[in-house]
């Protein structure tokens, strides 16, 4: 008996010991596991640098249409400052139209340029010449590309990642003072902090303080879910301790500043102080004043509760509490805190330099054209084809016109929406994307995703298919007369003109210019629906439309982006240029990943496209698009087409000049009738965009065996400009027999030659 007691005790001790050892071993294994997770993932995240995305740099050369004021504006946008250029790179001096510029070191897609001083002489409407510092003439010089965003191409987030040097001292100290006063002392977990929080909670009778250190908050953001369990808390604590064991306080603080959640912009989460500064104030972090820094620090506590855009009063109160705390910690003096507390919040107006709709296209094209593994690499540089001037012009034009149209509309419970894409048809470069009227917000991108019936935008494909048969030309008479078709499902279809009028016999050029439905349906049926569908596909439509007669009036649905692809081929003489927003991606060493080249393929007969395009210039000269001319510089020749879907649900205009192609859509998100034709809704927006990007006239090179002839717009008979008031010049195959207008000699060759000569002159120079 006496021996069995200690024996049993020993047995118990052994059991307990083994159990304890097992527990310790388990805890150790768990800690080792968490340690691994922390080191691997944190290391990966800490050094994952987003791809930097640049706009197309502005090329300057004699004749470039850039005024002195525009040049200065561009320099400011690129953060050049006025001063003595000899002092260093990034400085310019302006005297009237003369600029001396000390350009920075820049990595372009094709070369690394060292800093250099150049002189630029700008005239009234264009650049006159450029010189190097030694006086030698410089034929061409490009400015720095504008940084427009930072994206993680694979998971699509955008961040502005701060390096330790980018963090202003007030932010660094302020965040510690407000969120974790003992950050520099603790090892990831702060027992005093927990006790203090517990005491505060006990006194209040509810949880009012968390007691989490910055390290714990970071761990929570990085690795853990949001649930509040003991297990999760323990995991968080262990991970925080391990993180502190492996990384410096500074790494952890900077990672925290880059990771912390500060707000929500539609579906886009605002993470990190860099992006927060850009989102709320449209300024880099380094330029924020005391009050602005305090507002951002205050948001950490409750980004949606203190959202300054939704709850300005709460945000203001919170900012002032933070200002007081900063003053208490002697980071700012009391007077400065008091002054800042009296200031307004200073939020930037919505919109600005941020181009989410364009970046959306960039991400899609990155996915389309590059291997995902390549995109996962750190420190990529993405060179896009964005033209910031065209982007700004398009955003402003859309916002201005939609407000005007909304004010004039009887609809009070909904706002008109819109989308714009501007492209360079020669290269397929997309230079601007506006996905809706709230340009700063990332949301439904109508330019890429709103699929709507295109209405009469389809007609050029019908007329092109007709011209390609060789049986039609601009003067061919069509019959605009009622027609009733029996459809395959047994129903009948009787299309009507938009005006509900019947025009009878009209020349093809006029039927297109005035967008006559009956003449077009008859023409399309004669040419054949399969041919029209084939033409749409060869122009660039990816899915072949269903062969329904209503296809001829544009029941086919397309996104603005798809319309751009199709019209690019029309604007490009029948050559299809694949649309692209990404020119090239360079890796960290500056080597191209896989450069995506200008892709150009013959898609339609150039002679037929030329005849069609000349007819499309009559749309804006005499037809449904004639409202454009009042908004364009006098004498500008543009080609385009209006589109209106049934019941005016969609208002479209697609058109081009010698330099740009733009497609505009206006409509309601819920697809209700707008009461707007393409001419009333989309056309003025289009014309303003085209006017502000300074497009050259549309003057294509005439193909061989095509000549200009004068015909009456009304009767299609050959005439002269002097003989008929409604004479229009059309392009037809050389020697095409045309019935003449009685009493009018056909075009005298001299005047025609002169006309062509003057045309060439303006084309070449």
């Amino acid at each position, binding site marked *: 008996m006496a021996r069995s007691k200690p024996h049993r005790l020993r047995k118990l001790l052994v059991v307990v010991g083994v159990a304890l050892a097992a527990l310790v071993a388990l805890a150790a294994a768990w800690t080792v596991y968490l340690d691994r997770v922390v080191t691997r993932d944190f290391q990966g995240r800490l050094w994952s640098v987003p791809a930097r995305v640049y706009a197309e740099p502005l090329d300057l*050369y004699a004749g470039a249409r850039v005024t002195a004021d525009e040049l200065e504006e561009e320099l400011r946008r690129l953060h050049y400052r006025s001063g003595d250029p000899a002092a260093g790179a990034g400085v310019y001096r302006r005297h009237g139209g003369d600029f001396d510029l000390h350009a920075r070191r820049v990595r372009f897609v*094709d070369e690394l340029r060292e800093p250099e001083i150049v002189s630029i002489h700008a005239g009234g409407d264009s650049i006159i010449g450029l010189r190097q510092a030694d006086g030698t003439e410089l034929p061409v010089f490009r400015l720095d590309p504008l940084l427009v965003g930072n994206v993680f191409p694979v998971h699509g987030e955008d961040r502005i990642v701060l390096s330790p040097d980018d963090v202003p001292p007030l932010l660094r100290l302020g965040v510690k003072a407000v969120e974790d006063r003992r950050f520099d002392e603790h090892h990831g977990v702060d027992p005093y902090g927990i006790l203090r929080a517990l005491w505060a909670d006990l006194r209040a009778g509810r949880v009012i303080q968390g007691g989490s250190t910055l390290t714990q908050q970071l761990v929570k953001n990085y690795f853990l879910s949001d649930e509040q369990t003991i297990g999760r808390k323990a995991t968080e604590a262990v991970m925080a301790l391990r993180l502190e064991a492996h990384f410096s306080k500074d790494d952890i603080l900077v990672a925290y500043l880059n990771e912390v959640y500060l707000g929500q912009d539609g579906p886009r989460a605002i993470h990190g102080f860099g992006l927060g500064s850009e989102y709320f104030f449209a300024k880099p972090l380094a330029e924020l004043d005391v009050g602005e820094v305090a507002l951002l620090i205050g948001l950490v506590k409750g980004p949606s509760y203190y959202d300054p855009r939704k709850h300005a009063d709460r945000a203001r109160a919170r900012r002032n509490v933070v200002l007081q705390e900063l003053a208490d910690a002697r980071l700012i003096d009391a007077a400065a805190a008091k002054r800042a507390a009296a200031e307004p919040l200073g939020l930037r107006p919505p919109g600005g330099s941020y181009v989410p709709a364009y970046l959306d296209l960039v991400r899609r094209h990155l996915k389309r054209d590059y291997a995902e593994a390549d995109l996962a690499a750190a420190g990529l540089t993405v060179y896009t084809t964005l033209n910031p001037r065209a982007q700004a012009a398009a955003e402003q034009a859309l916002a201005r016109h939609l407000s005007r149209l909304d004010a004039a509309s009887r609809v009070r419970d909904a706002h008109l929406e819109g989308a714009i894409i501007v492209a360079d048809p*020669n290269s397929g470069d997309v230079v601007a994307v506006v996905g809706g009227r709230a340009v700063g917000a990332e949301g439904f991108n109508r330019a890429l995703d709103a699929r709507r019936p295109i209405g009469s935008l389809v007609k050029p494909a019908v007329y092109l298919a007709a011209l390609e048969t060789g049986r039609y030309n601009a003067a061919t008479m069509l019959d605009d007369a009622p027609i009733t078709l029996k459809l395959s499902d047994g129903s009948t279809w009787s299309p009507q003109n938009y005006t509900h009028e019947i025009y009878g016999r009209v020349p093809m050029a006029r039927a297109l210019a005035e967008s006559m439905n009956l003449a077009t349906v008859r023409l399309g049926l004669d040419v054949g629906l399969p041919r029209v569908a084939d033409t749409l596909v060869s122009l660039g439509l990816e899915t072949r439309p269903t062969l329904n007669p209503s296809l001829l009036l544009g029941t086919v649905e397309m996104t603005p982006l798809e319309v751009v692809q199709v019209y690019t081929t029309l604007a490009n003489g029948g050559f299809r240029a694949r649309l692209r927003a990404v020119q090239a991606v360079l890796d960290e060493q500056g080597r191209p990943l896989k450069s995506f080249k200008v892709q150009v393929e013959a898609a339609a007969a150039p002679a037929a496209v030329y005849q069609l395009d000349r007819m499309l210039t009559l749309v804006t000269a005499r037809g449904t698009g004639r409202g454009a001319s009042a908004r364009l510089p006098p004498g500008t020749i543009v080609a385009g087409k209006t589109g209106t879907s049934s019941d005016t649900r969609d208002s479209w205009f697609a058109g081009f000049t010698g330099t740009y192609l733009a497609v505009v859509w206006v409509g309601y998100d819920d697809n209700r009738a707008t009461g707007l034709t393409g001419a009333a809704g989309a056309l003025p927006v289009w014309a303003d965009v085209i006017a502000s990007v300074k497009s050259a006239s549309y003057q294509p090179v005439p193909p061989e065996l095509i000549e200009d002839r004068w015909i009456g717009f009304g009767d299609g008979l050959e005439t002269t400009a002097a003989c008929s008031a409604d004479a229009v010049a059309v392009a037809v195959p050389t020697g095409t027999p045309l019935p003449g207008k009685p009493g009018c000699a056909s075009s005298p060759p001299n005047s025609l030659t002169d006309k062509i000569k003057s045309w060439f002159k303006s084309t070449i120079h």
Partner: protein
Amino acid sequence: MVQVDHSLKRLAAGFTAAALLSACSLLAPHPPSQPPTPQTSSPQPPGSPAPSQSLPPPAPQVPPPPRENHLSAATRSLVTQARTQVAHGDLPAASSTLDRALRIEPNNPLLWIELGRLRLAESDAHQAEGCGRRALALASGDRIAQAQAGRLLADALRGQGRNQEARQVESQPFMNSSP
């Protein structure tokens, strides 16, 4: 394999020769413009629907006026730069430089010819064909540029094994005008 090597060599040789040719024409001052080749036979117009009225005699033929394409100082310097990049074996950079030139003068056939030659050097005969056709369309009225575009197009077609089409291009009248 042997055939591939052979065609690659031919392509490379073609590129060098053509680059030299076009180098002469693009960078040297242009000769005075040639008068257009007079059209000896009236081309057959595509059939047009017969109007009900009696046809008046066809309008007098207007010969296409002569044209001559040049590079501006800016695009000329970019073409020179692109060629230097090719000489250093940096074809992607040359491609970007020519893109830049094309943004300045998108309708200059000489630039499309240059880009097409670069595509051939990259062994992308299909893209070279697109450039050749674009150049040919833009060169309308400029016999010298037409001939260069035609040669590019023929080389691009041969590079895809389409020899008969290449010969067709070469038999076009404008192919006789040499720079």
